[in-house]
């Protein structure tokens, strides 16, 4: 058995108030394809930063090629052949492909002057190594995400790379682009380079990697050859719990006027002729691969995307040409990315909560501070947000509490339809369960109609009475949650390309 390229032994890393990694053993052998799985906050990003030399650690040791190293910084990592591709790719959008590719090498050559011919040649070589065709003179900012990723990979391979680490590489890729990426990864492996995926997407884990390591709460909880894993085992390891026995049962009348009724909805090129009915008390799940159009569908229902088609609420036709129209009609939307789309980090919890229902806290032309605070406290209690003080800044809350703030904000508007996009991404297990329970209660108790967009299959099964699958802009499947198993859904998603 060859020496591992890089090995961590009993490594612990502490941050103020918490342990990011706790006594972790981890190894990567040459020419392997390994997947490091875990939810947000599981410790996988910390591990990557240690392996790439950005962080040091408090206990344990780090070995390169079997030998312990004392100091290990980013330059040392690069010298050891370790390259990381982050989610933002670290490319320069205003510079050309050739320049992006060549910069690293040019800098290490310590040249003062730049020869454009030499630069172009470096770029061409890099792309040739991957056997791809991308215009060397194109501005990187104008390329698709998938093409940019290829440029990032090509750049990473320009030095003597022995280990390529890719952080959540398929987050923004369509099915076909993922295929292309995986083909490239196999070529890379054939060239003798090990690849480490950091991911929580099932496809990376099960289709391309040879070994899976699962992290949870800073500890390694499972490890083994891919053949021994399936989606259920991985999910259980990542989240720490089984799919509960809760289900959302809907006992309503399918013949009654639906809360939300959509006919023939088209949104640009991405969504085609969608028909959809949402009854009071239903929680309907919506899943599909990236590029399926599900986010665009949600945006259209929320008044953010121009669209055509018939949309009715409780039978009344709606015109949704702005967010204000949607909110006035009683449609609420909890966005995917709470950090940039949901929260006002430097403002108080109270202000975050009241943001969409400011009218409820006014007296005449003025704000009623007392009422504002009371409403905020009510929501905090309602959503069981763990904080003694609604004046605390939203940025100081944990992910789970932050998500509850955003959901709570929308509940304050008294919505009739609630659209959730990835409602528990990056949320700890306890908060997940709480949030799920709250949503199920709301649907059953108040007649709220919920559309839940999610990639988390157990979440869909536990909370929805119906699950829709979308592909290439159309709804292709409708499953009754009662009869369906996790593997059924994974199977159908896998079949979509």
């Amino acid at each position, binding site marked *: 058995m060859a020496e591992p390229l890089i090995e961590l032994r009993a490594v612990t890393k502490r941050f103020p108030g918490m342990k990011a990694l706790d006594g972790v053993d981890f190894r990567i052998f040459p020419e392997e394809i390994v997947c490091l799985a875990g939810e947000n906050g599981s410790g996988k990003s910390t591990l990557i930063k240690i392996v790439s030399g950005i962080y040091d650690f408090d206990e344990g040791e780090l070995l390169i090629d079997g030998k312990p190293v004392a100091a290990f910084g980013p330059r040392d990592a690069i010298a050891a052949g370790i390259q990381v591709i982050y989610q933002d790719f670290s490319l320069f959008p205003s510079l050309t492909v050739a320049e992006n590719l060549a910069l690293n090498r040019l800098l290490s050559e310590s040249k003062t002057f730049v020869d454009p011919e030499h630069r172009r040649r470096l770029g061409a070589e890099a792309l040739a190594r991957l056997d791809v065709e991308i215009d060397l003179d194109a501005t990187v900012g104008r390329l698709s995400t998938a093409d940019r990723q290829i440029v990032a990979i090509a750049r990473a391979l320009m030095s003597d790379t022995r280990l390529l680490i890719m952080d959540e590489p398929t987050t923004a890729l369509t099915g076909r682009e993922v295929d292309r990426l995986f083909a490239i990864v196999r070529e890379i492996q054939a060239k003798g380079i090990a690849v480490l995926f950091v991911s929580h997407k099932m496809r990376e884990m099960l289709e391309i990697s040879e070994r899976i390591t699962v992290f949870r709460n800073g500890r390694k909880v499972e490890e083994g050859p891919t053949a021994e894993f399936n989606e259920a085992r991985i999910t259980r390891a990542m989240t720490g719990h089984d799919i509960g026995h809760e289900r959302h049962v809907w006992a309503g009348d399918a013949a009654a006027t639906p809360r939300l009724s959509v006919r023939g909805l088209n949104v640009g090129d991405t969504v085609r002729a969608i028909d959809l009915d949402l009854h009071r008390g239903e929680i309907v799940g919506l899943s599909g691969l990236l590029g399926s159009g599900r986010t665009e569908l949600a945006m259209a229902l929320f008044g953010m995307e121009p669209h055509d088609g018939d949309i009715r609420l409780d039978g009344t036709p709606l015109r949704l040409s702005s967010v204000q129209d949607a909110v006035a009609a009683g449609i609420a939307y909890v966005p995917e990315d709470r950090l940039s789309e949901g929260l*006002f980090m430097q403002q108080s919890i109270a202000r975050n909560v009241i943001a*969409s229902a400011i009218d409820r806290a006014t007296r005449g032309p003025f*704000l009623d501070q007392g009422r504002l605070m009371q409403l905020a406290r009510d929501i905090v209690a309602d959503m069981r947000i763990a904080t003694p003080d609604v004046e605390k800044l939203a940025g100081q809350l944990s992910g789970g509490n932050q998500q509850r703030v955003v959901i709570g904000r929308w509940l304050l508007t008294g919505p009739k339809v609630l659209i959730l996009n990835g409602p528990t991404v990056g949320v700890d297990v306890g908060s997940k369960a709480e949030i799920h329970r709250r949503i199920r209660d709301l649907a059953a108790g108040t007649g709220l109609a919920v559309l839940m967009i999610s990639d988390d299959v157990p979440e869909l099964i536990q909370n929805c009475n119906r699950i829709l699958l979308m592909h290439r802009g159309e709804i292709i499947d409708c499953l009754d949650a009662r009869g369906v198993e996790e593997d059924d859904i994974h199977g159908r998603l896998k079949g979509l390309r």
Partner: protein
Amino acid sequence: MNKLTDLRRFINRDNNIVQLLIITAVIFLLMSALEPHKFLRYYNFESISFIFPELGIVAIAMMLAMLTGGIDLSVIGIANLAGILAGVFFTRLYPAAPDAGTAAELMRVAAGVALALGVGLLAGTLNGLLIARGKITPILATLGTGQIFTGFCMVLTGGPAIVGFPAWWGFIGNGKILGIAVPLLLFLVVAVLIAVMLTRTPFGLNLFLIGTNPRAAVFAGLRTERMVIYSYMLSGTLAALAGIVLSGRTNAAKSDYGTSYLLQAVLISVLGGTNPAGGKGTVLGVSIAVIALMLLASGFQMMRFSNHLIDFIWGGFLLLVMVINVLRNRGK
């Protein structure tokens, strides 16, 4: 008990205000110690109370623009344009009748004030539309409109100052009511109104949210475009008010008055705790900052420092305070 925790929270969160108050106190004591006979005279403070309000109003206008993450480089242009248009109104369009009584004169001046404020409102609307609808970055948009407004000033005056404002107009800049300078009263009214608006109305809350995260504001259903336009309209009107006070005080309106006010307004706004990236700023902070700097300038004048060295002090002061803020934040 609640009041006490509120006060403690106020002090904890707004270290900036406390810091400013301390700085103001230090300046006051320093100047008093260095030139007690000149500095501590009532006359000195009285003349300060006539001069600082126009700068203070402009600084508040600047703060409003900064709250949404923007800036308004056209405020001086608007101020001058307002003053000049009023001057044109008084001298060419609606000159005083030779036997006009007080009531008629007051009417004339009121009309002039309405005209000037109206111009400010329109100018601000233009800014708001270019920034919110045209999606032009505020620095460039207001740079351009500032040039346009100043340009119109040149066209209207042909170069020299416009003089001949009515006596009541001069009262706005030089008069006293109940022993207090009229400009100071105006500033106080403005400060209180804007402070109330920011802290106790939905509009104010909207501005803070939009400035903190414009994207999230859209997702939250806030009418971001409309609010931004309103804020620039308000800045423009305040700028016009400053122009009224300025031309009232000097009894003249010129196209290049107050060019140094622009830089100073930005400095005061930032010094007063406004975050140029948006989402944070208080009228109290800006007010204390303008008074602190005025005391500083006055003190240096007493010590016969050249006016220019005062400019040096302003700039140096800003850099110093910013450095202190950075070092303090690093320590955290």
